[in-house]
């Protein structure tokens, strides 16, 4: 690392460890980049952002690879008297997430540079957008690096705010702004909980570091520290019932942002949860079971709602919730495995969760990029207006198909690998558990995962089939065409990464195991030998995926051999006797999931809006009827609570009266309060 050494000579206030140099270097690149972004011309900004993101990605990836290879690094960042010394580290767990963040952010910036061209007529400020994109990327790396709670919280807040600015790119649009405010409020709820958790931790142990969680005394209140921190992270990750920001924010944000947010920002919630449960010293079973139940509900609820949505970006957002649930299931069985002293179960659960995090970041960003391309070309997010796009945008269609099959966990794609590991962990757990309650919980989880798998089959056959197949259902303003190469390139990169996971799962699994054993070095021991059959098994999966592809190709070859000289006539689709099929009469997305929607109406309720037909009317008049599905948790749990809250908080509105004079008075009031506090020794 020649560049790092160079910096070390230049800056005397650097600590001697390399990790702190990484942070400083990232900040430096970011600062220079921001100045550059302000100075350069509009059309060079995407390129410059790409360079900044790439540079920061390189800087942070080098120590990450070292950490994954077994050389974890930690250090101290000293920022003078202001904040003292903040401890930082890149261990294998941070490294895993940093690499995911880097890959997705790079693909995001490439895609975004093409995607934002269609917004150029809006005269919005692209320089702010690109500045915040680079800040966003850097802050995510910081989040993974800070060990010290204060540094962590500051980067967490920077991450939330910069992503907020990215989400409200199209701020003239009212729904976008509303979604942005919703996002901001929920993210601050998360930050507030995290801050509370860290303060409590500091009060109990005298340290802000994550590691201090190890030294919490064994009592009820320390369990609450864990619960508060986990809840804070669960809001970010989007577990039920904290999921409500996802389906509003993702459709509002530009597609490259939704891709990156769904791909990584949600995963940092998972990172947080992982980071916390590492330090759990007791009650693994309790936490594992709670996490498992929540995740199970999350995954089924998420995918059931995804299945019925018409807005394809909202569908993808709900699908993210499902996948968070699957990751959570992995973490849950991992914890139960630790609690049961069942090493295999623990390893399979945690590493399955890690691999699914990686996989999901790949195919979800791919799907969001495809969705963005479709939106850019058609200007609609309603799948009922689309159809037949496979002929206009064949490459995007194939990419979406690959993403769909991967996310439904179908072999030979990568989604199957991580789901297989989690299933395997569940079955290992089933064989190893004692007691009936755990057996039932695990068999229910297996059932739930199977149902979620089946539901994602419904969701993605519907989405792909209605968006890309059949005939166009509505006349579009512009004839859609294939998107530019710059927007397809990141999709190719992602697909390549996906296939590398699918065909060489053992390689990635090996690293995931390293992360897990590094993180749980105390709890999981005596591993030597016991993981080798599992790694072999995963090598098998890769082989089997290859064999499956071989069979596919050879069956198709046989078919081609027989069919090549056969006559082939072209004609209309069979219309059951009717000669001229109507395009509007094609099967629609709503009708595709209607019987499913009736069956699962307790999760996603259908709401019908119909005008009343006046009784006296003689002549027929235009008449509208619309259906939509409402998210039951949001409608019956979250909205009533927030309504109550806003009603109560209305009484405090007089505080925010818009007069600067009174704000000055508030300031003076607090200064006096603090003065009195110190004077009477209430505040130290």
């Amino acid at each position: 690392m020649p560049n790092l050494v160079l910096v070390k000579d230049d800056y005397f206030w650097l600590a001697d460890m390399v990790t702190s140099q990484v942070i400083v270097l990232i900040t430096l690149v970011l600062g220079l980049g921001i100045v550059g972004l302000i100075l350069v011309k509009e059309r060079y900004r995407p390129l410059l952002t790409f360079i900044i993101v790439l540079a920061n990605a390189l800087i942070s990836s080098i120590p990450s690879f070292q950490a994954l290879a077994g050389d974890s690094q930690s250090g101290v960042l000293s920022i003078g008297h202001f904040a003292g010394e903040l401890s930082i580290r890149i261990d294998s767990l941070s490294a895993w997430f940093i690499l995911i963040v880097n890959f997705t952010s790079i693909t995001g910036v490439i895609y975004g540079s093409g995607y934002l061209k269609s917004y150029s007529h809006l005269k919005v400020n692209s320089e702010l957008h690109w500045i915040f994109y680079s800040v966003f990327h850097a802050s995510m790396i910081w989040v993974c690096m800070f060990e010290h709670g204060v540094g962590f919280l500051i980067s967490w807040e920077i991450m939330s705010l910069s992503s907020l600015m990215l989400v409200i790119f199209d701020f003239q649009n009212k729904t976008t702004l509303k979604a942005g405010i919703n996002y901001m409020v929920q993210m601050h709820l998360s930050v507030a909980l995290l801050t509370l958790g860290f303060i409590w931790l500091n009060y109990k142990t005298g340290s802000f570091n994550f590691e201090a969680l190890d030294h919490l005394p064994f009592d009820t209140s320390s369990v609450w520290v864990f619960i508060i921190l986990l809840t804070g992270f669960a809001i970010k990750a989007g577990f039920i019932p904290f999921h409500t920001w996802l389906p509003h924010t993702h459709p509002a944000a530009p597609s490259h942002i939704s891709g990156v947010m769904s791909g990584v920002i949600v995963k940092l919630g998972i990172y947080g949860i992982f980071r916390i449960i590492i330090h759990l010293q007791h009650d693994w079973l309790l936490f594992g079971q709670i996490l498992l139940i929540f995740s199970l509900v999350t995954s089924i609820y998420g995918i059931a709602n995804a299945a019925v949505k018409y807005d394809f970006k909202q569908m993808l957002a709900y699908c993210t919730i499902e996948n968070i649930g699957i990751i959570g299931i992995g973490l849950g069985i991992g914890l139960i495995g630790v609690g049961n002293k069942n090493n295999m179960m623990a390893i399979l659960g945690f590493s399955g969760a890690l691999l699914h995090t990686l996989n999901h970041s790949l195919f979800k960003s791919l799907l969001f990029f495809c969705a963005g391309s479709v939106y850019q070309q058609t200007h609609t997010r309603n799948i009922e207006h689309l159809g037949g796009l496979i002929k206009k945008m064949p490459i995007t269609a194939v990419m979406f198909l690959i993403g769909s099959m991967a996310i439904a966990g179908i072999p030979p794609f990568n989604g199957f690998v991580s789901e297989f590991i989690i299933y395997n962990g569940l079955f290992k757990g089933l064989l190893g558990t004692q007691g009936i309650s755990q057996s039932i919980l695990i068999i229910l989880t297996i059932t739930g995962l199977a149902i979620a798998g089946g539901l994602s089959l419904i969701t993605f056959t519907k989405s792909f089939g209605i968006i890309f197949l059949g005939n166009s259902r509505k006349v579009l303003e512009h004839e859609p065409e294939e998107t530019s190469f710059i927007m397809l390139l990141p999709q190719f990169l992602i697909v390549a990464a996906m296939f590398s996971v699918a065909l060489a799962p053992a390689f990635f699994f090996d690293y995931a195991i390293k992360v897990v054993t590094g993180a749980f070095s105390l709890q999981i021991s005596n591993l030597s030998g016991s993981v080798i059959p599992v790694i072999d098994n995963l090598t098998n999966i890769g082989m089997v995926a290859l064999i499956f592809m071989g069979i596919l190709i050879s069956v198709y070859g046989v078919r081609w051999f027989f069919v090549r000289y056969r006559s082939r006539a072209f004609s209309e689709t069979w219309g059951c006797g009717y000669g001229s099929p109507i395009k509007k009469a094609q099967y629609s997305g709503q009708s595709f999931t209607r019987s499913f929607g009736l069956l699962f109406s307790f999760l996603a309720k259908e709401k019908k809006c119909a005008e009343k037909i006046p009784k006296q009317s003689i002549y027929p008049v235009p008449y509208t009827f619309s259906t939509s599905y409402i998210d039951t948790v949001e409608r019956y749990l979250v909205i009533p609570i927030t309504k109550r809250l806003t009603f109560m908080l209305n009484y405090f509105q007089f505080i925010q009266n818009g007069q600067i004079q009174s704000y000055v008075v508030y300031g003076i009031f607090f200064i006096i309060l603090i003065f009195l506090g110190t004077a009477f020794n209430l505040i130290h």
Partner: protein
Amino acid sequence: MISLLLILVMSLFFSGIIIRTKSILSGRKGPGILQPMLDILRLWKKGSVVSTTTSFIFQIAPTAYLASVIMAVLMIPHGDKPGFISFDGDFIMFAYVLAFGKFLMIISALDTGSSFEGMGASREALFSMLVEPAFFILLGSFALFTGQNSFRDIFSSLHYGSQISYLLGGLASFVLVMIAMIENSRMPLDDPKTHLELTMVHEVMILDNSGFDLGLINYTTNLKFAMYGALISNFFIGLLPLEFSIPMFLAIQIGFAITVGIIESFMARFRMGHNPQFVFILTSVSLLIFFGVLLVLGKFV
């Protein structure tokens, strides 16, 4: 290897036996046992008509459907002789590989832009989602029962236990017969001989397929039946030597085919709206098996 050969042989006769049973039960003479296979051969020689609405999805879906079932067949053991592919947790792969073919068949139905075919596709997707838990609970129960984690190990260690394993095997074969009926869209759920598009599941999905592709789809259905028959027979073969296990395999397959014929002769198709309830019954029967296993293992404490 042996199981692959046996399943391939059985797939040639399977629907012939069903049709023969049905014709005998309804007092007709009926076609020969090989007739369905001859029909498929005839289809394989024909040209095809392709809808102008369709894309390449429509062209590759039947192939992918067959390939996925072949892949699944390769994983099925014959008693203690492993299938072509056998590894820890292969039954998970089995279920998901079948989903691959299903996924493509469903979207190929949507590819035609028809107002009917989507209906079948939607039903197929729904029913196969509902049937999934039953299969996983079933295999989970047997994994727990035998302490093993792959098809071959489960089947080969099934008979070390008590007499109750036969009872569980019986219940399991009931569930598997029903799963096979649902996956192949047969009688209680779907009537392949019906002539109204609105009431069909599988048949309406393939309205537009013709020629070679239709032949592929029909053959895949037969192969799928034989595959489930092989799974059922595995519950009873256990460690028997080949000279006993092969006749037993054939007997169970033929018995399975005759059962399907009998069910189709004496049962009416359910109302479409009641089908989900029926499919859920399978999940509850699988749960019954699971609790039976817990009982046998003495985990009810």
